[in-house]
C-alpha cells in the first residue's frame, strides 16, 4: 500500500515557503501568479495500516497547532490523479534524500517495525490568472525543480 501524507499550513498562519515562491515566480518574469500554497508530501510505501499512517501523520510529520494533514491512499501510483494548477517535485531515483532517512528512523522509534520506504516531495498549489502548462513548466524548470536531481509532475 502507498500512503501520501500531505502537510499544509493551517488557515490563519503564515506560509513562508508559499510567500517566497510567489515572489520568486515574479522574479523570473512570470506575472499573474497571486498565491502559492506549499505542501510537504511524504510518500510511505510498505505494509502499514491506514491507522498507522494516521499516527505517523499526526504524531511525527505535522505540527498540531500550525499545520493540517491529509492522507491519500493508493494501491499503485498509477491511480494517482494530480491536482490542477499544482507542481509536484520529487527527488530522482538514487539521489540521497536525507529527510526521508530521518523519517524512516523516526517511524521505527514510534514503534512501527514494518520495513518501509519513504520519499519526500514538495507540492506547490498555484492561484492566478492564465495558468497553463507552458507557464507551469517554466516555473517548474526555472525555479522549483533542478532536473539534474529532481523530477517534476504537472497535470
Amino acid at each position, binding site marked *: 500500500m502507498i500512503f501520501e501524507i500531505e502537510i499544509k499550513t493551517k488557515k490563519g498562519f503564515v506560509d513562508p515557503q508559499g510567500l517566497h515562491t510567489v515572489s520568486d515566480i515574479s522574479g523570473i518574469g512570470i506575472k499573474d501568479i497571486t498565491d502559492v500554497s506549499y505542501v510537504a508530501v511524504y510518500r510511505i510505501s510498505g505494509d502499514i495500516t491506514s491507522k498507522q499512517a494516521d499516527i505517523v501523520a499526526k504524531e511525527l510529520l505535522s505540527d498540531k497547532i500550525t499545520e493540517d494533514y491529509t492522507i491519500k491512499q493508493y494501491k499503485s501510483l498509477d491511480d494517482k490523479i494530480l491536482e490542477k494548477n499544482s507542481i509536484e517535485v520529487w527527488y530522482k531515483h538514487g539521489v*540521497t534524500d*536525507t529527510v526521508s532517512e530521518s523519517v524512516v528512523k523516526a517511524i521505527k522509534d514510534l514503534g512501527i517495525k514494518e520495513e518501509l520506504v519513504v520519499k519526500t516531495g514538495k507540492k506547490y498549489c498555484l492561484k492566478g490568472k492564465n495558468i497553463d502548462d507552458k507557464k507551469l513548466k517554466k516555473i517548474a524548470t526555472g525555479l522549483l525543480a533542478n532536473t*539534474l*536531481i529532481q523530477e517534476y509532475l504537472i497535470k
Partner: protein
Amino acid sequence: MKVNTIEILKLNDKELVELSRKSVLSLSLVEMKEVQKYFRNIKRNPTDVELETIAQTWSEHCKHKTLTGNIEYCEEINGKKKVTKYKNLLKETIFNATMKLNKDWCISVFKDNAGIIDFDKTNGVAFKVETHNHPSALEPYGGSATGIGGVIRDILGVGLGAKPLANTDVFCFGLPDTKASEVPEGMHHPKRIAKGVVSGVRDYGNRMGIPTVNGGVFFDKGYMANPLVYCGTMGIIPKNMSEKEVKPGDLVLVVGGRTGRDGIHGATFSSVELDKESDVSAVQIGNPIVEKKVLDTMLKARDLKLYRAVTDCGAGGLSSAAGELGEKTGLVIQLENVPLKYKGLAPWEIWISEAQERMVFAVPPKNKNKILNLFKKENVEATFIGKFTNDGKLLLKYGNEVVANMEMSFLHGGVPKPTRKAVWKQKTIKKQSPVKVSAKTLQEDIKKVLADINVCSRDWIIRQYDHEVQGQTVVKPLQGSSITNLGPQDAAVIWPYTVVKGTKKGIVLSNGINPEYGKIDTYKMTASSIEEAMRNAVCVGADPEKISLLDNFCWGNPNKPEILGSLVRAAQAAYDLSLGYGVPFISGKDSLYNEYTIDGKTYSIPPAFLVSSMSVIEDVNKTVTMDLKDIGNDVYLLGITNNELGGSVYSKIKNIKSGIVPDVNVKVSKDLMKKLHKAIMEGLVESCHDCSEGGFITAVSEMAFAGDKGIKIDADAIKTGEKMTLAETVFSESNTRFIVEVNPQNSKEFEKIFKGHVFSKIGTITDDKNLLLVSEKSKISIKENIKNLQKAWQKTLQW
C-alpha cells in the same frame, strides 16, 4: 560483485586517450602511458578498481598537478623576453616564503587538512578555506552545503581533530539581472544559483551550530555559468594533538554517513570543463545532522586518545582518505565491510564514492571496542573496514577476491610531472582623462556607488546565517549603533571563552578578493587582495606582524599559456608580499579549469585570488568597530590617495575604460599598519574602517550611517599623490588607506605616532545627521542625509 579487468597493455595512444575519456578518468596521454608501463612491468592488466584509484589519486583536485608541475614562464616587458623555469610553482613561491619566514608561531603548515598557528601556551587555531565551484553550478543548494560540510570536516580532520568555532564564505556569481535568454541552455540563472548557494550554506552551517561570521560576494558576468563558492572553517585544537601518526597494525575505522553512489567521479570531474551533459552522479547531497553527531562524538574519542590519526573523506572518497593515511605504511581493506546506503554498488564505486559526512580513523587494536562503543552510544555508525600494514602496498579485497594490489609508491609518487607553458606580456595602461563632474552628479554618483551590486549591503545574506551561535562572536559582520543603523564590519572577532576558560584572547578572521583588478593585472590584484585582508584584520585590532594567510586560486584552463601566465604572476605577487610583510601563508587550495563550453564558445572565468586571514589578538577588549561613535570627534585619513581608478567601482558605473589599478607599497604599508595597531592598542582609536571598493567616500558614508552620525569633510585636506579632480579623489581605490575616528583629547598623541607618514585630519563628526563634503578648490559643496545614503546602500540586494 563484479570486478572487471580493463585491457590496457595492448592499447595504442589513441585508444588510451579514448579509455580515459570514456571512463571519466581525466588522465592525460602521458599519464595513461605511465599507467600502462606500470602494468606492463607487473605483466597484467589493471582491474577497474585499480584504474579508478589511480585516476582519483592523480586527479588535479587531489595532486594539484598544475601548481606543483613544471612551468616554463615567459615574461615580456618592453619587448624584452625573460624565461623562468619552475619545477614546482607552489613550493618555489608561496610555500617558499613561509619557509623563509620560519615563524615560531606556525605549528602546522601546508601538510595537513588545514594550517595551524599558536593561540596560547596549550592551544592552536586551525583555518582552512575550500572551493566547491563545479558542484554548485549544477546543484547550487547541495553543492554549497557539501562545500561547507567538507571544509568543516577538514578542520575535524586536521591533526587529531579541531573543534570548529566559525565559518566564512565568499562567493562570485553572475549578474543577477542577466536576461533569461542569455543563460546557456542547461545552466541555472545566476540569481537562482546565488539564492541556492546562500541557502545551502545557511542550512548546513546553522544546523551544525557553527556561526558564519565573515565573507563576501562579488558579482560579474564572467561567473554566469561557473560560480565560485569558497567555504572556510576555523577551529581550535590542543597543540599536543596537532600531529597524526599511523602505525602498522592500526585498524581502519570509517565513521559517519553511509556510502552510496553520490559524487562518483567528483575529483576527476573537477578537472573537466563543464558542458551540457555533465555527469549526474557528480552531485552530492549533505546531511548536517549526521556530521554534527560525528563532530561531537569524535572530539570525545580524541580527548580519550582512542585513535592515532584521522582524516576526512573528501574528493576521491575512501580512496583518497584511507590512501593518504596509509601512504607511508600500506593498507588492506575489505570493501564488503563498508556500510552502504543501498545494495548494488560495484567495488570501485564503494572505493571512490564521495558520499558525505564520513571520516576515517587509524585505531590501535587495543582501543577497538572502546571506540566502537563510544560511537554506538551516540548513534553514530562506525565500522572497521581494514588494517594498516607495513608492506607499502594498497591491497583491496571484496570477500576473498583481490580487487586491487598496487605499490603505494607508484600510486603517490608515480604521477608524471607535466610541463606547461605560461606567457605574460606587459600591457601599457593609461590613466583615464580627468573625470570632472558637477556637484549634483557627484552627489548622485555617491549613491550609485553605494548601491552598486559589489558595494551594497549584504544584510539579506548575513541575516540568514546564524553568526552568533556558540555565543563567542564579539565583533560581528554587521556593526552599528542600533539594529537599524548598520554598516559592513571589516573583520570578525571570535572570543573562544567556552573552550579556553578565562582567556582574554581572540581570533580575527577577514578576507580580501577583487577579480575586477585581475582583469587588468593579476599581480596587482593579488597584492591588493592580500593587503585588503590584512587591512581588514588590522582595522579591528589585529597585529599586522601576527597575521597568517590562506591562498585560494580559482582560475580558468591552465593549458592556455596566457591563463597560466596570469596565475604565475599571482603566485609571484603572493611570494613577494608574504616575504615583504613577513606574514606566512599556512594553507591553501586551487581550483582550475573554471571554464565552460557550450555551442563551441568558451567562457573562462575572471581569475580570482581569495586571501583569507587569521590572527590571534591578546585582548578582545581592545577591538574597534567601524561605526562612528561620538559627536565632536576628529576624523583622519591615513595614507596617500593616488590617481588609481583602474578596475574601480566608479570606473564601472561611469564606463571609464582606462585607469591605473591600485598598487601596494609594501614598505610603507607595513609600517603604517604597525603604527595603526599601536594607536589602537593604546586606546587612541574610536572607530576605524579601510578604504576599498568604492573608495574614500564609500567608506566614510558607511561609517556615518552605521554610527547614525553626521560628518563634515574637508575634501581639500585629502592628500593626493598628484593633481586629481574631486571625483577621482573621493572614488580612487588606492590601497593602504584607513579612516580613523579620534577623540580630540587624543589627537596630538595620535598624530605623533604617524609622524613621517602621509595623513591628514579630514573632518569632524557633527550632530546634524548629514554628510557634508566641501571642496573650496573645486567650488563644490554636497550635503546629503545619511539615511538616504543608507537607503541607497541597502536597497539593492533584498531578494
